[in-house]
């Protein structure tokens, strides 16, 4: 794949790494939805990939082919289709494991990242009644669970609930005014009582990529587990679980060009092997008697019921699609778009970026507020112009509260976005100011 030729007319300058941009004209042909029109017959400018990404034809075809050629309930039956379906499902697991630098036995399929995080939180509360092997996961009064103020609700509420069920204490890292994780009190917050640290790998509102290595180093000193919410990182940057040194990561398929209804929990083999199950039923059992049951080893132990095989196949294809581009290049592309967006939005009077002002340790999610115009109203004007953004608290209410604002407007980028999309965003914000008479 060749890089895009950037015409000098659209704001290119020597210091911006526009040579890193992907050939979006070619990529966009893979995404049928991007050629549809929206309100008033306008072309769609999709800047909401942080909520969910669009899907390339290759992923849709892979799902369709599974249903048309191989569909059967996996890990059941002795017929040919059951064999092929199981091979496709397990093949997808191997592709996804490779994509994040793990091994297949450490990849558990879930409904989404939210369920993956709940799996760990519920395993920890189930640990109290699951025998000596699971004792290391048990939490109770006096124990602490550490999160951050910049978590998505998916990586906050399950831990609040775990603490409510067990009597453990929830603590959290704050956010600096610049939108960075405040680690100034790491040595007191992360201490011998901390059982697990759950933090985001990239904030879905601020774009911030926190210094995971520093948190992992301290967690290792005190023997705490580390779970990384990678829902916004695995789709956008190279992720290697061994390099990260964490214990668990969670991510969703639908944010990385894959289907909805599938997510992943990756966990260290020895941890998964000692963890009690979360959802129980068929597929995850070893022996069932009326008096009680024993369970399969991981990952099957955590995959009760007939699994989402077609979605797994689709997600596997999405990983291949991203690998064909190269995750380094995906990241560089988004970094160039983010730099351009920070510049174009930053030059508009009355616009304030909520989050880091530079692309340093930051992903392609740009939140902002426009003086005297509520984000919903900004979003409404943008929508009228065909620009799809997210408005509100983005399922991370404590963040907007931290910055003393009701909500933000958020643009988030992916492989199919280009500089013209950023221009449409900036122009739309100016139109909103004109419409509401604030500029």
């Amino acid at each position, binding site marked *: 794949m060749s890089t895009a030729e950037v015409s000098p007319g659209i704001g290119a300058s020597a210091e911006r790494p526009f040579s890193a941009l992907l050939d979006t004209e070619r990529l966009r042909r893979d995404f049928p939805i991007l050629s549809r029109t929206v309100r*008033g017959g306008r072309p769609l400018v999709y800047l909401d990939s942080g909520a969910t990404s669009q899907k390339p034809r290759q992923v849709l075809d892979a799902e369709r082919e599974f249903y048309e050629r191989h569909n059967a309930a996996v890990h059941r039956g002795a017929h040919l289709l059951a064999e092929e379906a199981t091979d496709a499902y397990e093949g997808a697991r191997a592709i996804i494991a490779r994509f994040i630098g793990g091994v297949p036995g450490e990849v558990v399929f879930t409904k989404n990242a939210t369920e993956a995080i709940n799996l760990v939180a519920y395993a920890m509360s189930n640990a109290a009644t699951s025998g000596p092997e699971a004792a290391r996961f048990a939490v109770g009064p006096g124990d602490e669970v550490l999160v951050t103020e910049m978590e998505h609700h998916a990586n906050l509420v399950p831990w609040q609930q775990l603490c409510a069920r067990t009597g453990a204490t929830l603590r959290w890292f704050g956010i600096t005014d610049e939108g960075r994780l405040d680690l100034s009190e790491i040595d007191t917050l992360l201490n011998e009582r901390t059982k697990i640290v759950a933090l985001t790998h990239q904030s879905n509102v601020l774009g911030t990529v926190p210094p995971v290595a520093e948190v992992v180093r301290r967690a290792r000193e005190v023997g705490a587990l580390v779970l990384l919410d990678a829902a916004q990182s695995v789709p956008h940057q190279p992720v290697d679980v061994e390099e990260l040194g964490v214990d668990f990561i969670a991510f969703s398929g639908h944010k990385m060009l894959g289907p909805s209804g599938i997510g992943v929990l990756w966990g260290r083999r020895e941890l998964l092997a000692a963890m009690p199950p979360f959802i129980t039923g068929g597929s995850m059992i070893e022996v069932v008697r009326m008096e009680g049951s024993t369970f399969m080893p991981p990952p099957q132990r955590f995959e009760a019921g007939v699994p989402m095989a077609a979605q797994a196949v689709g997600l596997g294809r999405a990983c291949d699609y991203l690998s064909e581009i190269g995750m380094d290049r995906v990241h560089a592309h988004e970094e160039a778009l983010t730099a351009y967006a920070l510049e174009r939005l930053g030059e508009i009077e009355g616009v304030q970026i909520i989050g880091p002002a530079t692309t340093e340790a930051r992903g392609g999610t740009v939140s902002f507020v426009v003086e005297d115009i509520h984000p*919903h*109203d900004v979003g*409404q*004007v943008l929508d*009228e112009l065909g620009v799809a953004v997210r408005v509100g608290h983005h399922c991370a209410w404590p963040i*907007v509260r931290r910055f003393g604002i*009701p909500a933000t407007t958020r643009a988030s980028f992916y492989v199919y976005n280009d500089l013209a999309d950023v221009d449409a965003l900036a122009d739309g914000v100016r139109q909103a100011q004109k*419409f509401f008479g604030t500029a």
Partner: protein
Amino acid sequence: MQLESMYQEIILDHYRNPHHKGLREPYDAEVHHVNPTCGDEVTLRVHLEGANGEARVADVSYDAMGCSISQASASVMSDLIIGKTVKDAMTVGDEFLALMQSRGAASPEEGSLNEDVLEDAVAFAGVSKYPARIKCALLAWMAWKDATARALNP
């Protein structure tokens, strides 16, 4: 642009200069409602006068944070219902709810709107075309209904 159909001048006027805003004494009930999808919030108080069957809305006061639609809606609502009997005010509320659920079908041009009852609130007809914004327009109304029910049945 379609925007003008949603953001009628009346709505923008009420947004810029909201009527009856601010929390006041005396009051019989206070509620706090939020729109969990966007985080808009309203704290609303009602003060009723008269016995149950004849109760009259003596005052509606509120403190709200949110978009132009939710702010303007609270302002228009308080204009409309202060001074009315609870029964008449509920009729306006029901009519407004029906308007919001019309998915853009009701319009002043078609004469399908009950303008005698809705008065300035007909300006919100355009909002009903945008499902994501209907909850914004209804936030204050739902808070008022809740507060009134609490005031009547303490």
